[in-house]
């Protein structure tokens, strides 16, 4: 993806605003339970572990690992040209919190399961889309 693709953007609502705008501050944020520290994604009103309601958007390191991926070759979306790498990454702080994302700044034939990656943001209007690139410091 040499050029910035025409992304279909998420609808920003109060429950997800911290996530989609965190990139303005360079932060990847998830809801976190104040009581037991569980990260929660997608956002929900209660901690799934303790059912507590005291949840705070919290910045994580942005470090993650590729759990799995696919190289997409089909032109599904006008202006979003294949081939490109779609991946599910697991965040370093809590591996069962995953994001579907794109792996960028990386040749598609070098994307692999287990690849250490870190977040980068791509701004579109009021949203900051979290993408991931190889993390040279953990290669």
């Amino acid at each position, binding site marked *: 993806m040499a050029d910035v*693709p*025409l*992304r*279909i*953007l*998420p*609808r*920003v*609502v109060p429950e*997800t605003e911290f996530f989609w705008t965190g990139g303005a501050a360079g932060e990847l944020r998830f809801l976190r339970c104040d009581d037991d520290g569980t990260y929660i*994604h*997608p956002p929900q009103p209660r901690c799934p572990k303790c059912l507590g309601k005291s949840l705070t958007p919290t910045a994580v390191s942005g470090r993650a690992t590729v*759990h*799995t*991926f*696919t*190289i*997409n*070759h*089909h*032109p*599904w*979306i*006008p*202006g*979003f040209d*294949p081939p*490109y790498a*779609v*991946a*599910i990454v697991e965040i370093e702080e809590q591996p*069962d919190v*995953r*994001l*579907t*994302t*794109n792996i960028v700044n990386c040749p598609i034939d070098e994307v692999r*399961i287990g690849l250490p990656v870190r977040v980068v943001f791509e701004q*579109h*209007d009021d*949203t900051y*889309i979290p*993408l991931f690139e190889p993390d040279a410091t953990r290669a």
Partner: protein
Amino acid sequence: MPDILERKAVISGAGQSDIGRRLMRDGLDLTLDACIAAIDDAGLTRDDIDGICTYPGPMDVPPGFSGAGATQVQDALRLNLNWHTGGLEMPGQLGSVINACAAVAAGYANHVLCFRSVFEGSAQARAGGGRAGVTSGGGGGGFRAGGFMQWTLPFGAPSAANWIGMMAQRHFHEFGTTREQLAQIALNARKNAEVNPNAIYREPMSMEDYFAARMITTPFCLYDCDVPADGANAVIVSRADSAPDLRKPPLHVEAIGSALRGRPSWDQWDDLTTMAARDAASMMWSRTDLEPSDVEVAELYDGFSFITVCWLEELGFCGKGEGGPFIEGGQRIARDGQLPLNTNGGQLSAGRMHGYGLLHECCVQLWGEAGERQVQRDGGRPPRVGVAGNGGGPIAGCMLLTTD
């Protein structure tokens, strides 16, 4: 073991409309063809039908995903119903049949008409769009994604092909599964479709053809993906004690599987290599003394080839991670093999009937009505035990059917 109340239910008839890539016919029209055929097949009349259950109910988006809802059929056939329901939130497309079994066992209805119809092929042709129906680009204006799609659409991953492709890739990574192995799901389906006059794709396909096809999203090529089509299927779920009123010996519902124990998400599901088939299969086997080795025909969802591999493993036809070696070469899953699989050509070659086509085929095989593609066990009899599994990713439901 609890009371297995689904055994109070039987499948008394099955019907299918014309099936085609683009029939350019109305969804309700196709639906009624299948429903009337199923009622006739059971030896009933519409006056006998007192229940309806369908998946997913009326939906305009994606185009053609639902040919008709329950009340449209009730109205068109002027049915007098005691019980009716339809919806999307259930254990896969088969959830509608599972619900009908419960309704019959509870005494809400005597004969429940269950159906699923699609006209995605025609609807997409009319809209001039592609498979995913994604026509609006990004940038500032227009459509914005909510719900689950907000987590995938911004990343150019609008299709279950992408999501299940990633599950397959993880399976390849953990267990060494290969594209050569996966190809057998597509090749087996095509071989069966060659002798199914109602199948859409009947030209022979070779391993070379498979590898020559364009990639959609790794590891899936074109032939790993089903194709939007038009058609409808229906079955009648009846009270087991209504058998004397029926035209032919009904099929017994031995056990159903409807469990959901993981997160209902395409990317947060705990073990992506299992899908929800893990939970549904586990529940189904907990409700019967039969075992995987008793199954003589398997009709397992193949919206994408890998889903079938997953069902094979989770239903216990082979060990976890052994799906690749199990299907390698294709002999075990052939019509004359140990476990005849997707004997009508599945969705990959017979047409994307969204689960119900596979259930229809399971019934037809057990009744011995499959013609040239009929599975013959022990030198000539039809299979006695069949399993149908529907759904992929976080969606799954399954049923074990027997002839006696």
